[in-house]
């Protein structure tokens, strides 16, 4: 078994940060949480990540700006954008900006898991969530 890829979570709401990291823990996926995009960018300098889950509304650099920066520097890191704004313009900006997936809060864990698995595979690192029923279905 190779070392599982680390998933980065950028979320300023502490309750949600902890909830997400516990969810990934029960799925057997290692993760690191950040309360700001800037902190994640510093960590990215010397740590590889398998996937990034980012909120949109953040203090400082927003989730969409972060996505744009990563794409500008040619990063292939898949980015899943989550937001509590059911706003079609944010959704289209996220997807046009190259987000791997876009989820509105509150989302089902199944949905997140599906996107995570496919994102990790696309990133060439087969993340294997410790799951009885696995993989995305149509």
């Amino acid at each position, binding site marked *: 078994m190779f070392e599982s890829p680390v998933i980065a979570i950028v979320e300023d709401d502490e309750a949600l940060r*902890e909830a997400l990291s*516990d969810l990934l823990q029960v799925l057997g996926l290692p993760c690191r949480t950040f309360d700001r995009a800037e902190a994640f960018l510093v960590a990215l300098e010397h740590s590889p990540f398998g996937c990034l889950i980012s909120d949109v509304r953040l203090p400082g650099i927003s989730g969409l700006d972060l996505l744009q920066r990563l794409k500008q520097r040619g990063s292939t890191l898949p980015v899943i954008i989550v937001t509590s*704004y*059911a706003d079609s313009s944010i959704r289209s900006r996220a997807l046009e900006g190259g987000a791997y997936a876009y989820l509105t*809060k509150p989302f089902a864990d199944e949905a997140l898991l599906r996107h995570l698995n496919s994102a990790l595979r696309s990133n060439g690192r087969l993340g294997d969530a410790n799951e009885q029923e696995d993989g995305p279905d149509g």
Partner: protein
Amino acid sequence: MAEMAARRVPADQSDASWNVGSETELADLASESVMVFDLAGNIRYWNPASERLYGWPAIGSVGRSITEMSSNAELCVKQWHTLLQEGTWAGLVKRRASCGGQVTAVVRQTVRCDAEGRPRDIVEYGQRAGKERYPSSFPEINLHRQAAASWELDTSHVRPLLEAIGDLMSRGLGADLAQRPDWIDELLTGTRIVNVNERAAHLVGAHAGRAGMIGESVGAFWPRVGRAVLAELIAAVATDRSATSMRKVAPDGILRDAVVTVWRSEALERSDTVFVAVNGVIDDDRSFWYLRASEERYRKMIHQLPTALLQVDLSRMGQTFGELKTEGVSDLDAYLDDHPELLDFANGVVRVIDANQKAVALFNGTAPADFIRPVGFLFAASPETARRVIVARFEGRRSYSEVMKVRTFDGQILDVRVSVTYPGPQRLDVALIGLEDITERLRTERRLRQLETDFTHAARISILGELATSIAHEVNQPLSAIVTNGETSLRWLSRDDPNLVKVGELTTRVVSSARRASDIVKRIRGMAAKQEPERLPLNLNDVVDEALLFVRHDIEARSISLSVKLAADLPAVLGDRIQLQQVIVNLLVNSIQAIDQGNGSLQRIDLSTGVEDGDKVVFSVHDSGLGIAVGDLDRIFDCFFTTKDDGVGIGLAVCQSIIIAHGGSISVSNCPDGGAEFRFWLPTQFARISEPTGGTYA
């Protein structure tokens, strides 16, 4: 000594290489005729004694050739030749006089040379042949007073009129200008002053001075009594180049035996130039004519100013003020508190003595005569202003200004800025009151303020949407944490080794997030707790008009055709203008969105108001969208029901709350010809309605 400047070289003929220096100041005072010519015989300087000797003023003579003035040009040329050869010439010359005859003079001419010995100019001294003496009644000291008031005029603008008059004359039809005041006016208005000498400026240009007269029309300065004479003389010389016309002017008290002489420039290229000289002895610089001429000009100027002006006579008030000050009154404001009758007195004894055209127009009057009465009427609508105007005068201020209301002659109330200019210490009798109508400006300001308020409303209306989005976000955060924590707990519980400690931890978090969500809801409710809605009589049509302001742009941008049928004489309803506006804006925005989604070819919104059952005011808006799904008709006003992707579903719920709180009701139906129609009705102001139990619509 501007007069000398005029006696030298007019600007348009100046020649930098030739300069009559300050030396001419001496010659100005000489009793002998003194002239300076350039080498070609053109007159460069012509002193007052020359004006008296030949009758020609310096203006009109400077620049002319002495040969032209000579009765025998050929002889003159010969003499000139001799002069230039020998350096001096003396003898008799015959020259044309302005009165048409000729003057024989004894002259001595000398060529002056420059430092290198080159001929520079010629000076001539001369006097009338026959050694006539001046009458003893002409002391030397008065010589300068006999100089002509002379004018150089440009008639090019009135040439068509002059030609028409000339044509009538030549056909013997006689154009008696005295019978045609309109021609006189046109002629004198169109004739422009090119130059005047100091004397003319002194006589009639009092306020303007020479500089102010040049370029203006001669009619603005020429005294009334001589207007017909001047016009006739100009017309007479206009048709005959060689003619010189002169006429005595009826005595005015300013000049004794005044004679006006008019002649036309002999230079072909200046055929529209006419010279005028007025000869006569001034009786007194401050003579009646001078004063009347300047006052007349002053009146004329005031009458044509674009500001409404009134002249008021303060003389009676000045006496009263003098008496009060003698009695030791120094604080008039305090004195008026004890003697309010003084204000009435002032309003009665201070009289308007003149008003200009603009004032007549401002007050919707017919003539300045309407104003000739005590000034009280002016302050009738703002009595306190009269008091402050009087106090300012008493305190010796030179001006006072404030905004007040005036009642016009036809009963309108206008907002005006009143500016009073008090006379200086040397003239205590007449003040000027300027009135600037600022009604429109204030109205515009009020409209802007109203618009600002409206924008605030618009902002409030759009905030409703913002607020809903914020609420969604705030509540979604803890909900999202609850969902994720719950699902994570379930995953732990479904494993072969359930981590109960972890599940307990997660469950604690679920509870705290749920509390947080509940707190947020409470906070929002507190934030949106409304003030009591207003209940004022409103015309719903006005509310509709205002609501349309907010959405008109959207409607036009989408090329939706909007039909608005507002019932006339709609009875008033009692309500809160802003809330009802919100309802109508919301319904209109819904209609626009329905048309957007419908993408049908027909894009139309029909809006109407009317009365039903005599005691209900009805509003209806019908759009050409797809209508409402039958299943949704019953739920459309429910809170958080929405058919839009990003809708929050509180708009129609809020509308319903507002209408119900107003004692009315709102309904929706699909129309047979397509689209949806929203209708609400409200009780009229006097309809008996059971008090609504109130509704909260946060």
